[in-house]
Every structure is written in structure tokens, then in C-alpha cells.
């Protein structure tokens, strides 16, 4: 039996005049669609398939950045992806360009970042065999300790 994936996503929202609205899709199904106020931890369980795709979409960015009299940015609506966790497998995205997962903005610019400062989609896709191998090795390690 294929192991169920316990997905955890940690996000931090920063408001301009409103909080960033984030939609999360797992295997093309929407599992979350609402504003991210401060820190949010999102949990979801799913069965892996060949198409293991996680998309994090920022979709309400507009020109509401708050600036002071000297044009310095005081508040800017954006969202940070802190980490993505698959069971105990943690991808710490809060370290710039540690991995190669892209954020593709609406204007098609593709950047390696966890900073969703524009409207666009962060893609985290993974190969099913890699997940299964990781899981089996993890189980093997747990079993050997028992």
C-alpha cells in the first residue's frame, strides 16, 4: 500500500493594506484559499500519484504598497514560504536559493525564491519514486532502531 503523505506548509503573510491571499493546490485540487494573516501552518494528507504537484499561488497583489514621505517602503503585501514538509522530510525554503524550486510570476518571470512578492505561482513538484524510496529508507531506519 502506498504510504499517505502528510503535508505541512508553513507560510508567513505580511500585509500592505490587506493580507496576501494564497491558494494552495495539491495535485490540482484546491486545499486552501484564503488570506494568510501572520504565520499559518497548513496540514493536508494525500495519496501520492505520478503527478505529485504542489502549487502555492499569490493572487491579490496590487499597488497598495505603503510608503513614507521619502518613498521608503513601510508595508508591502507579500507572503513567505518558510518550509514544506512531507511527513518528516523537511524542505527549509527560508534559506535563499537553497533548492531549485521556482516561483513563476504572472509576467512569466521565473525566480528561485520563497518570497511571493508578486502575483504568481510557486511550484514544488516531486517524483513519486523518490518519495517512495525516501519513505522506505526512513522506515528501514526506524525498524532498525526498534
Amino acid at each position, binding site marked *: 500500500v502506498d504510504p499517505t503523505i502528510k503535508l505541512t506548509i508553513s507560510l508567513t503573510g505580511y500585509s500592505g493594506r490587506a493580507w496576501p491571499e494564497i491558494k494552495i493546490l495539491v495535485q490540482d485540487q484546491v486545499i486552501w484559499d484564503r488570506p494568510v494573516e501572520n504565520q499559518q501552518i497548513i496540514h493536508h494528507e494525500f495519496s501520492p500519484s505520478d503527478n505529485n504537484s504542489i502549487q502555492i499561488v499569490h493572487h491579490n497583489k496590487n499597488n497598495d504598497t505603503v510608503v513614507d514621505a521619502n518613498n521608503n517602503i513601510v508595508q508591502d503585501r507579500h507572503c513567505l514560504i518558510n518550509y514544506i514538509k512531507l511527513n518528516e522530510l523537511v524542505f527549509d525554503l527560508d534559506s535563499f536559493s537553497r533548492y*531549485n524550486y521556482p516561483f513563476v510570476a504572472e509576467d512569466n*518571470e*521565473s525566480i528561485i525564491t520563497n518570497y511571493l512578492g508578486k502575483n504568481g505561482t510557486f511550484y514544488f513538484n516531486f517524483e513519486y519514486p523518490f518519495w517512495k*524510496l525516501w519513505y522506505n529508507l526512513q522506515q528501514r531506519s526506524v525498524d532498525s532502531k526498534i
Partner: protein
Amino acid sequence: MNKKIVLVSVPRLDPAPQANLRFLLKKLQDANIDSEIFDANLDLYKRYSDLPSWADIERWGIQQQDRQNTSNELWQELEKSFSLWAEQIINLHPTHVGICVFTGESRNWTQWLCYHIRKANPDIVIVLGGKGINKPGRPNADFGEYCLSWNLCDYYFNGESELELVNFLQDRPCIVNNPDTFVSFNDLDLSDFVYYSNDEYQLTSKWYDQPINVQDKLLKTYSTRGCVKKCTFCDVPLLRSNWSMRSPQNLFDEIRFAIEEHNVRSIAFTDEMINGSNKQFLAWLELLANYLEKNNIQDFQWESQFGLKSKQSIPTRTFDLLDRTGAALTIGIDHFSNAVLDHMEKRYKQDDIFWFFENANKPKITYKILMFIVGYPTETLADFEIFKNGIVELFQYQPQIQAWDFGQTCSIPFGSKLSKLENIELGAQQVDWYYHNNPTLTKEERLNRLSIIDQLSQEHQLNLTRAKATSLRVESWTQQ
């Protein structure tokens, strides 16, 4: 339990045994560590390079396609290779497997080979090294971290691993799994010979994609590491700040050994700049030229990347020695506009280029590849006209020129001098940038200039090196 490491060369590289792995093997064997090489790259060439599926296999690696975008037929072929290699590697009974991820194009091959080795025998320790560990042009080891996260490897070396791998296998302190800093060793002793067997010498000739004139046996080795130039668009200075060369005598000894013991007549250097030091370079050429003449060896040739310099910086006797030793040079000429050359910090002018070609017009000097950059950020239309005229000017030397390379328009490695240019905007890929100070040079305009050069190449029947691969890359980034 005694340790044994199998060093693996993964696709896709030139079809020749890798000198760097040979060098590493020698370091390991000197330290009495049981080790051998498994060459998956050559095996792939042997099995597929003549088949129609070869183009798809190339595309899969170069574009790093995921399984979703791979046809079932192709995937079955690839899986067959991975399983076979994993089985063959495991049959060598290693405790460790060291995979050389030579470039970004080796990543797809590496991750699936790791997967198959792991699946077949999870107890083997998998260690990764090579430049493909890093994000291109950056010190960050993103691929190393990725493989580590998915448990596809146990350790990775970010940087030069020749000394560190020996330390690692001897349980001494060493730098592993270090994501942020590319480790290089300025005092690395490059003096070890790169020994091949007779069979391997034959293989190099058989599978080398652009064989130089002599079809006998090829020694692939190196004399230097790094580059003395600090060109604005280049990532070599980012990864290795200094330049070093083997002693002329030591290098000559290796070549004499290869000639006398294996009847080698061709040398391919993997150097980035063989002539960083005129003094050492000419001393080596003198030794070689005298030896070849004394022994009446006529059919000898060597090839390497060669750094063009100003006429004041190239002693005139260089040309005579290049001719007497049969030099096949790969040169990054890059441009003909003095304004662009100055901005690139090439330290030579258009006059110097033509002076070089005029003096190098000798029977036994050839050019393996001439490399150019189309669409440098500061390139104006006037610069581009100068560039085109410069190319045309070189047509008179066409009999000496084996291949031309016009790249995929200028790419800007992250962290390079160009990437720090004021008003430059960088995208995710190195070719994806916009320079606000030269607003008419859009992505479309760069491709337009490249297509003008392509057309010129076709009209004059220029031989373009790796043209297919280059067009694949252009196709890949224009589709975004």
C-alpha cells in the same frame, strides 16, 4: 570492513575517459584506497549514439525533463540504462560510490542513477562531487542539498574534492555537505600522471565527437586549473580565484610517457587557459618541439583552450612553437568591437585579434573552436556591425578553422561582474536578463542578431560546434 569506492562518470560529457576522474583515482590509489572507475557516459555513447533515439536522450539530459514530459518509450530505454549501470556498479562490490556531476546537464542522469543504486543496495554510501552540484555560476550547492534531502546521496562535496575525498575515506576531518561555499585548493599538486589503459586510449579516439586530425590514440589530460583573466561574463573566477600549472618538465614527462609507451599522437587538454604564464607555457612547448623533432615525430597534435592576449603579451616565438608542436586551439575571441572588448575586460583589441591570426597562419596551427558572444549587454547596433565584419574578416582563415561557436546569446552567471552591473535586471536563467542602459537590446533583438549570424554561418557553410545542443537551449528558454 575495508572501503572500496567506485568513481562514476555520468552522462553527458564528451565521449572520452575523464581526466579529472583519473587524477582522483591516482590520489586515492596513492593513499592505498581500493578504487576503480565506472564510465556510464561512455557506455551510453556506445549503446545509443548511432541510434535515432539519441537526439531524444540528449534532449532529456540537456533540458532536464521530468518523467511527466518523457515518453514511455524513452523512459523505458533510460530505465534500462539506469538499472544496468546500478547492477554493474554493485557487482564491483563497493562500499562507496562517488558520482562526478560534471555539469548541470548531468543532474537528471545523476538523480536517477542514485535512485537505482539506492533501490538495489541501500547500504552503499553515495557521495557526489563536481561542478553540477552547484547552481550554475554560484557557489550554492542546490543540487547537493536536493539529493541529500531526498536521501539520494549521503554526502556531497561542494568544490574541488581530490583532497577531501581522500580525507573523507580515511576518516579524517574534511568539508562535506557544505551548501554555501565552493571549496578550492590553491596548493593542489597537479603533477600526477593520468594513466589510461591501451583500450581506453583507443576508446578516446573512437568516441571523441570532433577528432583532431590524428586518428590514432588520444590522451585526455590537463596542465592548468583556473584562468588568469577575469572576464566580466565568466563564472570561472567565481569558482576558482587563482590559476596554477604543472611544471613544464612534469607535463612533458607525461606526454613523452604516453608517446613512448602507448604510441599516443594526440593530446586533448581540459584546461581553461593553457597559456596563463608565457614563461611556463613556452618552456613546455620548447621541450615538446625539440623532442618531436629529435625523434622525427611528424603526426603529433594537441588541443586546448588558449587565451588570446594583446600583441605585446604574446612573444613572437610562440607562433613557431605552436606550429612545430601541432596546436589545435580553442579560443574565446568573443567580440570584435573595442568598446565591447573593453567592457568585457578582455585586455586585447580588435587589432590584436587580426595580428594573432595573421601570425598564426602556419601549416600545423589549427583552431578547434572559435567562440563568440552575440548580444553582450552593452552591444549596440554599431558594435554588432563591427562583430559581423570581424567574422567575415576571419573567413580567409577558414581552412584552419574546424568549428565556430556563437552560443545562445550572452549569458550572465550569477555573481559575475556583469551580474553586478548597475541597471541590469536578472531572471531565473543566465540568458534571461535585461539591461536598462541598452533598452533596444531586448531578448527578441538578441535572438534576432543570433539568427543573422546563423544565416551568415549557413551562407558560408561554417561548421558550428554542438549546434544542436545550442539550439536546444535557445528553444528551451524562448519557450518560457
